[in-house]
């Protein structure tokens, strides 16, 4: 079993999105508070790292230790079914293809992320194909200009960027794109909503590259195993 095979529903996830979010694009995971956006985002990022895509977990306002502990836990759960040698190989591959970057003080800005990406490219020979952005933005207060700038950064560095946003019960129905994201128009290419369903979380595609979300394919995320699977 190779890592492409290990989480086949994630491959379906990619298929729905015509090969994934794609470089130069921004994807958003939306849900109510505490539903598992970070876990899904981290699973997607680690899955990319397993497949030799350099990924950056960029975090505002946490410590490396906290981020690392969380990411390690997700990884450990993802590779649980493998034998020791495969686990060691996957872990080594993920370590080589994933970095954490934390800003502990000052305000986050797209410019800071741009400087960091430039630094990593020049000094660490690290050019992320995926950026998992945690702690920014707040979709209710972020300006269109900032998201425009983030989009241009995605294009400039040829990377896909995943962000997340909270929704509130009064915002919209569960299968509708929240107004705050709707107002960003084409700057956001993909929107995936997370809805708790018992002990699992349903993933629904509110927006894909090709317009209306596909029907008949239902994915679920299990926060205990960190696995995405068919419902």
């Amino acid at each position: 079993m190779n890592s492409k095979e290990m989480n086949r529903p994630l491959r379906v996830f990619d298929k729905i999105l015509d090969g994934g979010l794609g470089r130069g694009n921004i994807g958003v995971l939306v849900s109510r508070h505490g539903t598992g956006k970070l876990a899904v985002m981290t699973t997607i990022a680690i899955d990319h790292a397993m497949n030799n895509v350099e990924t950056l977990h960029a975090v505002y306002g946490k410590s490396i230790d906290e981020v690392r502990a969380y990411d390690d836990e997700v990884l450990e759960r993802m590779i649980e079914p493998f034998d020791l040698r495969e686990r060691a190989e996957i872990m080594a591959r993920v370590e080589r293809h994933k970095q954490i970057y934390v800003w502990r003080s000052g305000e986050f800005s797209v410019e800071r992320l741009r400087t960091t990406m430039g630094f990593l490219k020049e000094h660490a020979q690290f050019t992320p194909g995926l950026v998992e952005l945690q702690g920014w933005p707040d979709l209710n207060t972020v300006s269109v200009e900032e998201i425009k700038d983030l989009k241009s950064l995605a294009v400039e560095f040829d990377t896909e960027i995943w962000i997340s946003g909270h929704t509130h019960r009064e915002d919209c129905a569960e299968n509708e794109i929240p107004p705050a994201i709707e107002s960003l128009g084409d700057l956001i290419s993909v929107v995936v909503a997370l809805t708790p369903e018992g002990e699992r979380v349903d993933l629904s595609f509110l927006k894909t590259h090709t317009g209306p979300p596909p029907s008949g394919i239902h994915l679920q995320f299990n926060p205990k195993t960190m696995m995405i699977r068919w419902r």
Partner: protein
Amino acid sequence: MSTEISKMRNIGISAHIDSGKTTLTERILFYTKRIHAIHEVRGKDGVGATMDSMELEKERGITIQSAATYVSWRDKHINIIDTPGHVDFTIEVERALRVLDGAILVLCGVAGVQSQSITVDRQMRRYNVPRLAFINKCDRVGANPARVCDQLREKLRLNSVMIQIPIGLEAEHEGIVDLVRMKAIYFDGEGGEVIREEDIPEELMLEATTRREVMLDAVSEFDDELLEAILEDKVEEEMIHRAIRAGVLSLQLCPVLCGSAYKNKGVQPLLDAVDLYLPSPKDVVNYALDPNNPDEKIPVTNDPDDELLSYAFKLEDGTYGQLTYVRIYQGRLRKADTIYNARTGRKFKLGRIARMHSDKMEDIDEAGAGDIVAIFGIDCASGDTFRSDKCSLTMSSMHVPDSVIDLAIKPKDRKMAGNMSKALQRFTKEDPTFRVKVDPKSGETIISGMGELHLEVYVERMRREYGCEVEVGAPQVAYRERITREVKYDYTHKKQTGGSGQYGRIIGTMSPNEEGKWEYIVKVTGGNVPKEFIPSVEKGFVSCLDTGLLIGAPLDGLTVELSDGNSHSVDSSDNAFQAAARGCFREFYMKGKPQVLEPIMNVVVESPTEFQGDVVGTILQRRGILVGTAEDEGFVRVEAEVPLSEMFGYATDLRSVTQGKAEFSMEFQKYAPVPKDVEEGLIEEYRKQREEKKS
């Protein structure tokens, strides 16, 4: 007479190297009248700081061994262990933390929370040690205690709260403001021994009031009466002390004090804080183990009238012969009493008991529960438990990290071989992370430890203390090997060479042990392998663990399950089943697809942001993998995983690319597979060695 337990404090002083903890300890000794003059760490007066009693420590200006001392302050009896700051000596820090009830975390007012402070804090968490923070060097250019207090919160996730603020900083540092009593405190006299209390200077009043509010807000969480008193504006000093103490004891609060030990400011209030806020032995629950039921932790009683239970946490070979530092958990140690070593079962008559004051001592007749004393002439190893004959408990063993580096040594002069062996014997007893073995292939003596400096210091001590100069080889990392998949085995050992033969058949599985441990699972039913030979099989396998078949390295864990087998009524014996296990290992080990592992270090580099590129460069050149980077106010913290084999000489390289402004710490992280090309090289080297040996 032993001291009343509630009046005892057993504290450690832990910090990053060069934060000034030895200077601080020296001042504590001076103010508590244990010494009558102050000596500096790198003693220009030729004396050196009192706590740095080893010649080598005085020369290098670092504390290598944690010398113990005791002082009296107010009505309290305080045992202090001064602990080393370099990461290579963390076993010393860990040994101290194991027996201490509280600690002072010393931080540099300029450099703040540095990499080593993080390591030390992690160790303190492991042992649940309540702590106070002392922000030292407030007289230095760039000192900023408020920033350091914030760092404690952000980097160490401590609920830090300033209970003092400095009066002036850098050259203008004059004293401190006590936010509990709202008084300014100045330190007069030649050595700061005369304390003068004044009203808070007007220009500091606003800051003091604001900080006090923050403090009250934080500490009121630990005392309802204080919370009510704040609302009614009837706060009393005593209530604040009580709340801070409750917060500290519950490990949920870290009061922050400040000053400058070198300029004799802030030390006496720190001693008051130790008295007021750190726990006495009876405020802390320590656990012992019952060897008959090792999973159950039994709280020690702290009762001096109970059966004796004590723990040897440090050995020293000094002017007075072997000194053993002991923490008494219950009962008493009395001169001429007979005590038992739980590990060896041997009994001893106690000759002398002493309180140590660095390398001077004071004889006493007895010491009671909670106390730390030194005893003489007892043959034991670090970590042993001493108890009375009626006590069956032992103190839990310490966490001892694996050694990660090997160094081949041989005496320059053959006549010195005896001294070298004496020294090695001594060091292995003193320090569980220092190990010695003879390489069966080369016949060389190999010493193993936690890092380059760790071993360098022992080589130096051999020369100074035992007059034995040694030649050292290049440091070698300690490789390991492990199988990666389960193998089923069915092996018969059969030998018929006249006379009684040998027969033993074993069936089961060999599999990797992910925790890196040896595990033996017996599932034999129906007596196919007779009961008396089941330990023989284990013995046979255990004898193979030191030398794997891939490159001859020790195994990083193995699980063997014995599920079936066969025996012969005449030819089966202990030897036959041991031989069966060894033969089985030889035949089936390679089928488990073994791989070579190397020690990977977690390296943390802290540097001004301007050198970030250079720092990253030094990591990448060393096969390092960047794990994370954190930016914080002009500083950057880079965390990486780097193979130990690439870390030799790193300190020099880092210094040169950062103009000495960056620093790093490293800690063993894990064993990980070596790259394929390195593995092939090691396998080839081992193959050649074996062929040479055969020919």
